């Protein structure tokens, strides 16, 4: 979503993005004239008149589970976005009985928070597991 019109979105997709991604952008490219939606999400920069690089993860119940906002010159990390969705999906599937520790990714161990784990995380989880 950006303040550009859907006509500009079409030009960008057809003339540039479709040359990077086969078949073009697979998801809807949203237009937010005057930054009304961006304002509601707190990412509209009124001084510049554009939206910052905000990324929101919204769960199946419509609840915001996480977000990240960057200034214009640095792009996002799609792998990290996917990792976070996978972690939230795991937590949701376990109905909150499991938690994804720092650096978790599919295949790595999860934690089961509870009275027995208090003060014992150091026994089961090591700091090097926070890194790839």
């Amino acid at each position, binding site marked *: 979503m950006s303040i550009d019109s859907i006509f500009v*979105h079409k030009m960008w997709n057809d003339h540039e993005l479709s040359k990077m991604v086969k078949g073009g952008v697979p998801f809807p*490219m949203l237009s937010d004239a005057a930054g009304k*939606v961006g304002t*509601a*999400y*707190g990412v509209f920069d009124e001084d510049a008149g554009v939206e910052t690089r905000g990324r929101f993860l*919204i769960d199946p119940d419509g609840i*915001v589970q996480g977000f990240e906002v960057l200034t214009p010159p640095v792009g996002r990390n799609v792998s990290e976005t996917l990792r976070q969705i996978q972690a939230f999906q795991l937590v949701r599937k376990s109905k909150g009985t499991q938690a994804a520790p720092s650096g978790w990714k599919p295949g790595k161990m999860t934690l089961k928070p509870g009275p027995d784990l208090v003060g014992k995380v150091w026994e089961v989880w090591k700091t090097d597991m926070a890194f790839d």
Partner: protein
Amino acid sequence: MGEEIKAGCARPTGGPVGKPPEEKPAAQDGPRKEVVSMIKVGKAAPDFTAPAYHKGKFISVKLSEYLGKWVVLCFYPGDFTFV
């Protein structure tokens, strides 16, 4: 999901749906300050409608039509902005 819209000369628009966030009452003294609150995790994402370009068509997208699915909503400064 995603009703098609006709492309006319008027630029289609969307915007937030539902009641606007409650305005905080102005302080008794001092200049009135506008409060822009950031989204909070664990709280509902503001619903909205927005015109969109999707696979060759112009459509209207409403966030609440995606209930039941995970949604990644990305904002960016503008088309052709390099990164």
